[in-house]
């Protein structure tokens, strides 16, 4: 079992997402610590990208604020090293292929390993392109997380068979962002996933309320929440880490079996 597996070992996992450097890395670091204190099982750290094509307006806004604040990839690695002094739960990066490619894939993935990043989520690297980074990820023991979408259909088994870390199940069509209703037949998708792999799967995109998180984690092994957290961050300024901590606690309580 990879380190990521530990996040799912004690029951349903709650996976919060935060964009690094929005509005600055000090806030990111403080928020991550509050998330951990309040029951987060795995942290998804977004490295901002100028043109995040899989994101809705909320996370796009976080990317803009972070880049405007001057955050660089190297600063984010430094922050991770600092977090790793006391944060033991798995942490993964979510970013776009060009951020990794441009830094130098080998150099980037080696730095992930060294600073304590357990996995990579790259929404613009589908199954067909994963060889771009996979051999290097294997060399450094960093899991390349695969995604399954409502449109994956006949591709689900192929993706699930080769998945590592955990499987990211995209709940709905479209980009990230909160939704009042998730109508995809996730049960059928997850059934095919289970037939093809033992690694855990978590549902993301559109989840914001404890009820939704409970339902999604009930169908799978965990719930991923991004935009709802970014909204709190944007609304509460310096109080945000505390408020996000409370939110994480309510979400974790909702999905606890």
């Amino acid at each position, binding site marked *: 079992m990879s380190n990521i597996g530990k996040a799912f070992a004690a029951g349903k996992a709650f996976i919060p997402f935060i964009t690094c450097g929005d509005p600055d890395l000090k806030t990111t670091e403080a928020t991550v610590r509050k998330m951990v204190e309040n029951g987060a099982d795995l942290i998804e750290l977004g490295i901002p990208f100028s043109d995040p*094509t899989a994101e*809705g307006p909320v996370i796009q806004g976080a990317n803009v604020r972070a880049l405007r604040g001057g955050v660089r990839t190297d600063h984010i690695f430094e922050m991770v090293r600092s977090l790793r002094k006391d944060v033991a739960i798995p942490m993964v990066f979510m970013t776009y292929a*060009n951020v990794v490619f441009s830094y130098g894939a080998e150099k980037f993935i080696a730095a992930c390993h060294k600073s304590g990043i357990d996995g990579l989520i790259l929404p*613009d690297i589908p199954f067909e*392109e994963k060889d771009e980074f996979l051999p290097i990820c294997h060399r450094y023991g960093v899991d390349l997380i695969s*995604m399954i979408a409502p449109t994956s259909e006949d591709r689900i088994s192929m993706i699930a068979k080769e998945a590592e870390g955990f499987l990211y199940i*995209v709940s709905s069509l479209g980009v990230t962002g909160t939704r009042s209703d998730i109508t995809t037949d996730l049960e059928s998708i997850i059934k095919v996933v289970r037939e093809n792999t033992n690694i855990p799967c978590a549902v993301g995109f559109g989840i914001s309320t404890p009820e939704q998180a409970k339902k999604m984690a009930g169908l799978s092994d965990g719930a991923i929440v991004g935009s709802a957290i970014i909204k709190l961050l944007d609304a509460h300024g310096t109080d945000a880490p505390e408020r996000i901590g409370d939110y994480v606690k309510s979400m974790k309580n909702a999905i606890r079996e």
Partner: protein
Amino acid sequence: MSRGRFGIHGGQYIPETLMNAVIELEKAYNHYKEDPEFKRELGKLFNEYAGRPSRLYYADKMTRDLGGAKIYLKREDLNHTGAHKINNVLGQALLAKKMGKTRLIAETGAGQHGVATATAAALMDMECVVFMGEEDTIRQALNVYRMRLLGAEVIPVRTGTATLKDAVSEAMREWTSRIRDTHYCLGSVMGPHPFPTIVRDFQAVISREIREQILEKEGRLPDAVLACVGGGSNAIGSFYHFIKDEAVRLIGCEAAGRGVDTLETAATIATGRLGIFHGMKSYFCQDSDGQIAPVYSISAGLDYPGIGPEHAYLHDIGRAEYVPVTDEEAVRAFEYLARTEGIIPAIESAHAVAYALKLAPNMNSDQVIVITVSGRGDKDCAAIARYRGEDIHE
């Protein structure tokens, strides 16, 4: 290595949500491109509706004025809707219709691709939504009106630099949210496979005609073919049937904006480096962290931080040359062609004309160059007037 590669470039770097859509598109395209009925229908649209073949015009005054190579202009500006964009759009719209799609979405920079898509949608009874950078809706207000007149919805994109790259990003986002009834009618030889191949094949009609026409007029192939390059669709269309003829120089003219030594440039080959963006591996203008650069050109249609993967490959193997042309040079060429030949080219196409002004005088009178005039310049008149300090209202 995945499908759709040109050397190391190309590929399918897109969200999983879109993978089955591009696979379905590739299957449909491979089927219909060989289908006699599809070819007959598209040929009819090209000839009867778009006005093909477009003229290969001998620019006698320009040739005499420059005193070097004989200059021919491939008049894509004379196509219906005023640019080469219609070639690709008629092909994709017909394909989408055959696939049972009822809605077309598109990005547009200068507005020419948006107008062409809105036109095809009107003709084929399809719904149409066009994404256009807000900055470009201001620079190209006339085209916004044309699209709306044709029944399309135009959505101004306010994210990022509010130009072409942001319009592409927004169209990709829209496609992930609505795939079943919607075809993304991509306007250039870029994006994920199979788009660079499909768009090239539909635009290759340009070089097929140039070849026939120049053989008829001159009894020989040209020494050089020049075209402007943003994503690169009119350029690849102009080059394609000459790629195997090594003696024909293929010259792509990039938008250098205020110069390749400034940050206000969109010359990808001159200033970019290898990256992965908008579904493809290719060259992109970017910073050292891989953040895509906010590029600039006076020409909304060339104001894009990347270049199509086949061009990146032709550059790598040295088969095509890519040269930067500044705003000032393009504006001078825009004015020059208007005064010399009575032809007002699109400011995009004026970049190719500008390089010809440098190249032709250094060639012999028995040599021949072809410049693709990819579009007409009516849409640019107000902006060029402003560039020259004259405030006119459209």
